[in-house]
């Protein structure tokens, strides 16, 4: 049963990511990405890490992608890219592709040199919370300050200037 679910979810994840890359409609891209995130949540649940699974779904599929979909569906871009920009794409894309391939090879290498400790992954919400507030306190606080700064910055940029 576990194997069956794993292969089902794995195939769905890869299929969704492929669909995201191939599809040309931005809204479909976003929907495929949500499907991929949801399947990833399922994979985490199979690893007996229900907390990570649920958080993955709440944050990525439930919150971040909603904003993506909002923008994509409201703006609804139809026009293609201008010829001038296309030139840039032709020059830039091979460079980015090479960097991506190097990164992928490195990460696959890392995946083969197991065992990676799964203790952190399997930790329940209690252990995770304790680690966040003791060992990783500074990382946690700095991240939260960064996020709040980004939030305030976004609001300041969007806010209309008041007439004096």
């Amino acid at each position: 049963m576990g194997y069956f679910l794993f292969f089902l979810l794995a195939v769905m994840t890869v299929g969704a990511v492929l669909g995201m890359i191939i599809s040309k409609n931005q809204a479909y891209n976003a929907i495929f990405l949500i499907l991929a995130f949801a399947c990833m949540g399922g994979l985490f649940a199979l690893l007996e890490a229900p907390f990570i699974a649920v958080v993955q779904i709440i944050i990525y599929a439930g919150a971040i992608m909603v904003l993506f979909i909002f923008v994509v569906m409201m703006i609804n871009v139809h026009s293609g890219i201008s010829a001038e920009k296309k030139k840039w794409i032709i020059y830039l894309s091979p460079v980015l592709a090479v960097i991506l391939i190097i990164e992928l090879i490195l990460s696959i290498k890392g995946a083969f040199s197991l065992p990676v400790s799964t203790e952190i992954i399997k930790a329940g919400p209690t252990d995770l919370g304790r680690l966040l507030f003791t060992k990783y306190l500074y990382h946690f606080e700095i991240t939260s300050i960064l996020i709040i700064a980004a939030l305030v910055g976004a609001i300041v940029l969007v806010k209309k200037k008041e007439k004096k």
Partner: protein
Amino acid sequence: MTETLYETLIIFIKIVCALVWLLACTLYLTWLERKESALIQDRVGANRASIFGIRIIGLFQPFADAIKMIFKEDFVPSFSRKFLHTMAPFISFFFVAITITAIPFGDTLRIGNRTIHLQILDFNVGLLFILAMLSLGIYGIIISGWASNNKYALIGGMRGAAQVISYEVALGLSLIGLIMVYPSLRLSSIVLYQGELLFGFLPKWGIFLQPLGFVVFLLAALAETKRAPFDLPEGESEIIGFFTEYSGLKWGLFMMVDFMEVIIVSTLLTTLFFGGWQVPWLASDGFHFPWGGELLLSHVVVVLLQVAAFNIKVFFFCWLQILIRWTYPRFRYDQLMDFGWKLLVPLSLVNIIGTGIIMTL
């Protein structure tokens, strides 16, 4: 071998029972809504549906409604994005229906030497699981609005998504105080904690320990169900909503999802704030009253009492939500956003700080 077979069979029966319970409640909630609204508006309400002339105060009405809905034409507009248009109601339905798996209906039932938990899945993050599934339900709204390819439906969908995602913030924050008091995300443990007594006589229900959290959660959950006074996403008659381009059974699914959300919110209110299946002073062997009396009961009676208590509490909250829906007028959009962000979110933050201060005292 037979052991695993029995286990599988028990899980299968539990799933079927829970789903049948949810759908039967949904069916009769439509009847309750019609009758209660009729009472409020001084009418008689639906009472004509009959089988062989037997009418019993319109109890057959839900079946008549269902038959009507099935035989309506299922019209898909030619300009819509057909696949997603068809998918959207099912997405909505799925993510609401699946939350029932984490709800504890009762404690354990002993048959012979076998113990059965009256809950399908006992997650250690059950509470977060329900919130995650409810947050995914938002895609049903957005996708239906977009796939209809109709500007009004799209705007309705965006309005709905903006409302649901805004109130999710208050909904999640209002529960943090509760998690601090009952230090667990496992719903069955939260219910077990609520069986303890405060000052020796008051059950430790969430409503007594987290009154402010309860108020914020109730208001935010009302907004999540997308019914009046928060029914801007749908706006049945005046402003055009996200399911304008739907008809027949697909529209029926959206309507059922609304009612199912009412039930799920009621089960959550019961489980988190009103002791779930706990009956005050009822332990596993019978009543132990704080004034000294005892009333010993057999195991089956205790289990039946617990399940009945859960059901009565859920029906009470369903009734309350219908009462609210037929009493208050709709919010204006800016009032809705102000209410969520400027009142409920600060109140839930105050609740977290207050809970923390009281707990450290």
